[in-house]
């Protein structure tokens, strides 16, 4: 364990701003309609629009493209195809193409683009691009894709560059196979009093940020490529654009990515997906800005989707409830390209024990190509998927040995210092407190009776955990400067996705420098001006960038103390900041306002000035992580920085006839280490629960037998409205400090949707005695299961 504890303030005095439910620094802009998103920016009358020509087939060879009819349409400035950009790109594995080359691998894949000043002209002309295809048999089921005679979706798999912690299997459809082995799992089953097996299915899901993906690119006459992007990842986008377009002579210095406010991300705007087309097309229409705004339909089928997953779980337990072994096999429907999604598979493969102390572990997590849209990051990053099966299974195991489901979890809950599946030690964790407080909040153990005799009430419980999945050297940096009035600006390159990151950064800097967050502006990123941030994903920016901002503020404070010491003579050790003033512990009368000198410096006795504009810079990299481990066991590395843990419980009313479910109460406790802003964390809990409940209660992607997504709109893919929320939500914040986090904070953004599915499955079992092992658990599915159970009961009689 690291013992880094740089935040002495936490123990030596009360905090002024950290830990307070400060009003968001972006609240006024957003509520007044002033906040600008990419599509709100004006690019003048010269702006071009690109319309994408897409594959109607899930698996086909391209035998010819004829663009002449489209090019002949008046107003069309350019038609581009894969031939113009024979480049691959990708975050963790370069298996994706800017435009399809000689093959398409999912319905909706980009084959060509038509550029015109008038978007209506571009759309009309795009229909005239003639593409000849030779259809190949598609594979939609990952289990089919594993068969030895299955066609290869990527025959070139062995040639794709990838990160060192991926293990692609050449000449198969397995793009990556994470194996984690600890102890002896067969011995563990032999020692168990009960061994239980189960199978669980999770379908694909869509992020449904309300703002669609938008990209605007301008490749100007000087050779600069400027991109305005609705993205979670400005720096990663710059890097991937520069990498992919290097054959055109572009370097990192030539590429600039500007990311104003983004209208929701949830992982869907991480990495690079459709944006690569904007960058490539811009180079083909030099001197003219070009925009691609995805329609809601495209948003569903050609960005990222949450991957589907089929799991088998085998768990051994002793009669006293001790888990002896877990064997967890996960086969992922990763889609046509896995450049990002393979790392979701990897993350699950390291952590599919859940937050339990398990001596013997066997995990296989296989990333399997299919001819469905590319899978990728989605809030929860694999954990939502496997925790549905695992936490359903834990309830079944507890019931089988006659133990209370909460007591079973409490007994096996992981604690600080326990050895994780891959051999590293567990970080400080308040899991048991989370379990106890959640159980109390839903009055676990107390049976509730519905007013309506047709309805029954069940209670469901689950624990959760998640670690950020990042490269071992993912880092953050921050600049900070004072203004004449003592206000401040902070430059960072994390994205304000709505989680309140900018506010949290203002609170951290404000705490160090005694400046109220309301006097601190935090800018959205521009890679030419703001310092580096890897990406705003993985629930890591409060932790990682928070450390960088803290470091920048400390550096600025040291400069303040230095100049005060030089001009006024006080020892630097005696100086401290309070209410935007410099004070000295040796002179109670000394009280120097920051605004008096943070730009203009301090006047010395001889009339000269010392100091000057106060600026600070800071950075953070987790120097203790490593992905170097044995590929057959995953033992030896330290791939994850820390886990955030918690528990959730639900009181669910179910109508026996219609299957209709009403969430009467839901409680979620999460150990955030330190709540930088409790109001924002409650926002994450309330919003995350609703997003998670939707994945279990009704959201579902439906594909035709040709692989075409059938419900690519908000009428047929229903997401929650204001009517679809729990009657009562109880957020519970636990604070077991993370020693290397800013003021003890760790990440929380994704975690709040992870337990939603298993608490519903477990509550239905409690209410009806029926176990449903596949998501979503719709009213229809529940009603049919009740009918089936009644029919088989009738047969027995």
């Amino acid at each position, binding site marked *: 364990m690291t013992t880094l504890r740089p935040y002495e303030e936490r123990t030596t005095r009360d905090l002024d701003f950290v830990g307070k*439910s400060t*009003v*968001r620094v*972006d*609240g*006024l*802009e*957003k*509520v*007044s*309609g002033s*906040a*600008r*998103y990419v*599509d*709100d920016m*004006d690019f003048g009358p010269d702006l071009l629009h690109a319309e994408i020509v897409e594959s109607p087939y899930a698996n086909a060879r391209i035998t010819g493209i004829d663009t002449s009819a489209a090019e002949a349409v008046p107003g069309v400035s350019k038609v581009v195809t894969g031939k113009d950009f024979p480049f691959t790109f990708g975050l963790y594995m370069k298996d994706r193409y800017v435009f399809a080359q000689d093959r398409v691998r999912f319905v909706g894949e980009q084959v060509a683009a038509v550029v015109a000043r008038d978007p209506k002209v571009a759309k009309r002309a795009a229909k005239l691009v003639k593409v000849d295809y030779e259809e190949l048999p598609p594979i939609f089921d990952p289990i089919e894709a594993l068969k030895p005679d299955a066609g290869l979706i990527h025959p070139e798999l062995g040639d794709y560059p990838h990160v060192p912690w991926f293990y692609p299997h050449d000449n198969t459809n397995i793009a990556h196979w994470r194996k984690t082995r600890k102890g002896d799992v067969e011995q563990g089953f032999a020692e168990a009093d009960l061994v239980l097996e189960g199978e669980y299915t999770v379908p694909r899901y869509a*992020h*449904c*940020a*309300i*703002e*669609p993906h938008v990209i605007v690119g301008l490749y100007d006459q000087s050779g600069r490529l400027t991109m305005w992007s609705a993205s979670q990842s400005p720096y990663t986008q710059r890097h991937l654009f520069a990498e992919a377009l290097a054959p055109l002579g572009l370097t990192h210095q030539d590429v600039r990515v500007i990311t104003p*406010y*983004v*209208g*929701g*991300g*949830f992982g869907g705007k991480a990495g690079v997906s459709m944006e690569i087309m904007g960058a490539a097309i811009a180079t083909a229409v030099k001197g003219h800005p070009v925009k691609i*705004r995805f*329609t*809601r339909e495209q948003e569903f089928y050609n960005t990222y989707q949450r991957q589907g997953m089929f799991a088998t779980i085998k768990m051994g337990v002793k009669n006293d409830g001790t888990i002896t072994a877990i064997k967890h096999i996960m086969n992922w429907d990763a889609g046509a390209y896995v450049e990002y999604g393979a790392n979701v598979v990897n993350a699950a493969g390291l952590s599919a024990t859940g937050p339990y102390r398990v001596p013997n572990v066997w995990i296989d997590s296989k990333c399997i190509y299919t001819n469905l849209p590319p899978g990728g990051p989605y809030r929860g990053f694999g954990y939502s998927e496997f925790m549905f099966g695992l936490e359903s299974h834990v309830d079944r195991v507890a019931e089988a040995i006659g133990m209370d489901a909460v007591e079973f979890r409490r007994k096996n809950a992981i604690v600080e210092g326990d050895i994780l599946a891959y051999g590293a030690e567990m970080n400080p964790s308040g899991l048991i407190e989370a379990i106890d407080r959640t159980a109390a909040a839903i009055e676990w153990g107390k049976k509730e009776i519905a007013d309506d005799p047709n309805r029954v009430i069940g209670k469901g419980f689950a624990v959760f955990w998640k670690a950020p999945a990042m490269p071992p050297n993912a880092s953050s940096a921050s600049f900070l400067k004072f203004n004449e009035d003592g206000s401040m600006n902070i430059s960072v390159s994390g994205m*304000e*996705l*709505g*989680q*309140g990151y900018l506010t949290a950064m203002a609170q951290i800097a404000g705490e160090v420098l005694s400046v109220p967050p309301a006097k601190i502006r935090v800018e959205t990123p521009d890679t030419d001006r703001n310092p580096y941030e890897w990406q705003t994903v993985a629930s890591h920016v409060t932790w990682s960038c928070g450390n960088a901002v803290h470091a920048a503020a400390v550096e600025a404070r040291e400069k303040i103390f230095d100049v005060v010491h030089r001009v006024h003579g006080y020892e630097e050790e005696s100086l401290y900041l309070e209410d935007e003033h410099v004070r000295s512990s040796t002179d109670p009368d000394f009280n120097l306002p920051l605004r008096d000198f943070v730009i203009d410096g301090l006047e010395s006795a001889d009339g000269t000035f010392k100091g000057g504009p106060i600026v600070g810079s800071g950075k953070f990299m987790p120097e203790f992580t490593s992905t170097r481990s044995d590929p057959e066991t995953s033992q030896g590395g330290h791939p994850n920085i820390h886990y955030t843990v918690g528990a959730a419980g639900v009181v669910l009313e179910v109508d026996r006839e219609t299957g209709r479910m009403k969430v009467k109460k839901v409680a979620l406790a999460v150990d955030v280490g330190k709540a930088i802003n409790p*109001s*924002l964390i409650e*926002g994450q809990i*309330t*919003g*995350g*629960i*609703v*997003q998670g409940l939707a994945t279990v209660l009704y959201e579902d992607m439906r594909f035709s037998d040709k692989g075409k997504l059938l419900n690519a*709109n*908000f*009428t047929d893919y229903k*997401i*929650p*409205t*204001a*009517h679809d*929320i729990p009657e009562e*939500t109880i957020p519970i914040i636990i604070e077991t400090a993370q020693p290397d986090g800013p003021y003890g904070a760790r990440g929380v953004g994704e975690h709040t949707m992870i337990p939603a599915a298993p608490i519903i499955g477990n509550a239905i079992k409690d209410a009806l005695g029926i176990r449903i092992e596949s998501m979503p658990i719709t009213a229809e599915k529940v009603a049919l299961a009740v009918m089936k159970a009644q029919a088989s009961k009738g047969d027995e009689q």
Partner: protein
Amino acid sequence: MRTDISVTVNGEPWLLTVEPSDVLLETLRSKVGVKSPKIGCERGDCGSCTVLLDGHTVRSCLVLSVEVDGHEVVTIEGLNDEGLTQLQQFFVDMNSFQCGFCAPGIVLAAAELLDENSEPTRADVQEAIGGNLCRCTGYDPIIDAVLAAAGAGRGTQ
């Protein structure tokens, strides 16, 4: 066939030339330069393009520009000349929004509700904003702010 229309947007008169197929949302964004109504689904599902037409909420992606000839459109920019309404101030103070993309539409839907019903119930608020999708908040912080604004008096004043 292009048509000239005369429309009041946020109190200011505009004379605009539009195509018969132009929708109000695009006209507002590209010809008037009002950017708060957002493009989210272009088929009336999400509500992020909500504006007030003669005082009542409409989805501007489902209204043809020619239909607003002689009428009055108000977006969030025109809600209050003096700055924020009380309702908006409650939204700010209670950290009601996250990404903010749905905020212009929801603020208008809630303003319309409080104009018509000064003592709404929780269910009334849910109904009023039921056509405006928000993927971030789980709606509770938004509903709480509308109820708090109503409780504090006339939210839109």
